[in-house]
């Protein structure tokens, strides 16, 4: 990304206040309500530095959790939770049954790293499951939980096909990535994207990000990385089961399951009609059986 010309307006180190539309300078994007924003995470340039995790924790005032060592490679975060909204996954491809290989291939090729986050689904299953309306679509086409309305019922937790939404047992409410809703309203790009030193996490308008991602796929294919593909773009893997598309989508080089992503996520609401039909049919069949048995008993009694 080239430098924006407005950067020359702010040569000083100390600023009087927030730079208006700062995202133009840091992310090359102007944030306006009514447009669709998201993340493009290119896993091929992720170095596993966890700057995104730290930036997210710092901005959102999230406490450290899962204190201790997991024993899973360099991953001590473990998973996304109510207090962890970014999680850098470390997948070791070399070695055998958990034992690391004695020699590592150059250029970190023995590793797959991916910064996981809420996908901000177009047809968000968590939003559909929420009975109080606490989960809503913002003016930036992102999915956010309103804390003053959430009653902690937890229906959204199993509805999320990615296992992102989590209930905090301390405050009794669910939490997840807000795509830095407060920062977007202030013209700032999300903290994780701003902190990413390799631009593995790119923030922007979704149509622009899709174009950038397709270009990147082309470049990788030319370089011989033919297995590279996009997860979560319209009609692509990850955007299955009527989810539409994912506002946070990924460039992957392995099967989704390797990154702990579902191969074919679906909306929980798709299962309501078959479940209800099966339930009603079962009740009907049992009622008919009971009537039949009752009638035959009475017939034999005469």
């Amino acid at each position: 990304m080239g430098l924006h010309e407005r950067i020359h307006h702010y040569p000083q180190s100390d600023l009087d206040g927030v730079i208006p539309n700062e995202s133009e300078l840091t992310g090359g994007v102007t944030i306006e309500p009514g447009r669709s924003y998201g993340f493009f995470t290119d896993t091929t340039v992720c170095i596993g530095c966890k700057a995104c995790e730290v930036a997210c924790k710092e901005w959102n005032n999230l406490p450290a959790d899962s204190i201790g060592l997991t024993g899973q490679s360099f991953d001590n975060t473990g998973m996304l939770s109510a207090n962890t909204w970014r999680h850098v996954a470390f997948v070791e491809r070399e070695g055998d049954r958990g034992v690391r290989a004695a020699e590592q291939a150059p250029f970190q090729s023995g590793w797959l790293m991916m910064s996981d986050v809420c996908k901000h689904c177009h047809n968000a299953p968590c939003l559909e499951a929420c009975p109080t309306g606490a989960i809503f679509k913002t003016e930036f086409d992102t999915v956010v939980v309103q804390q003053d309305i959430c009653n902690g019922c937890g229906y959204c937790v199993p509805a999320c096909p990615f296992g992102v939404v989590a209930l905090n047992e301390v405050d009794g409410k669910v939490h997840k990535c807000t795509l830095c809703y407060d920062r977007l309203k202030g013209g700032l790009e999300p903290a994780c994207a701003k902190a990413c030193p390799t631009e593995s996490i790119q923030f922007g308008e979704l149509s622009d990000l899709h174009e950038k991602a397709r270009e990147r796929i082309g470049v990788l294919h030319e370089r011989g990385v033919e297995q590279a593909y996009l997860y979560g773009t319209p009609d692509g893997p990850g955007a299955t089961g009527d989810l539409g598309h994912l506002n946070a989508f990924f460039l992957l080089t392995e099967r989704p399951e390797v990154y702990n992503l579902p191969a074919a996520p679906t909306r929980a609401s798709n299962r309501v009609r078959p479940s209800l039909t099966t339930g009603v049919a079962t009740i009907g069949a049992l009622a008919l059986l009971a009537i039949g048995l009752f009638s035959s008993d009475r017939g034999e009694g005469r």
Partner: protein
Amino acid sequence: MAAKQTIEGVVILAQESRFQLTDDAGVSHLFVLSHGAFAEPSDLSILQKQQARVRVRSSEAPNLKARVAHRIELC
């Protein structure tokens, strides 16, 4: 039952049900509002905007680098 502790200071940061309080020694403490506390996340942002001086009764949170705030009182 974890031991409860009272900390006094100024609310300098509030995000959802989490807030940071700086005590007189300049040490910052991170709290998560308990579901049983007589306060809502929306109250925290008001306290933060007013840079309110408060007294927080809290206990340790399990597996979390934060304390659970059970009671908040204005000083």
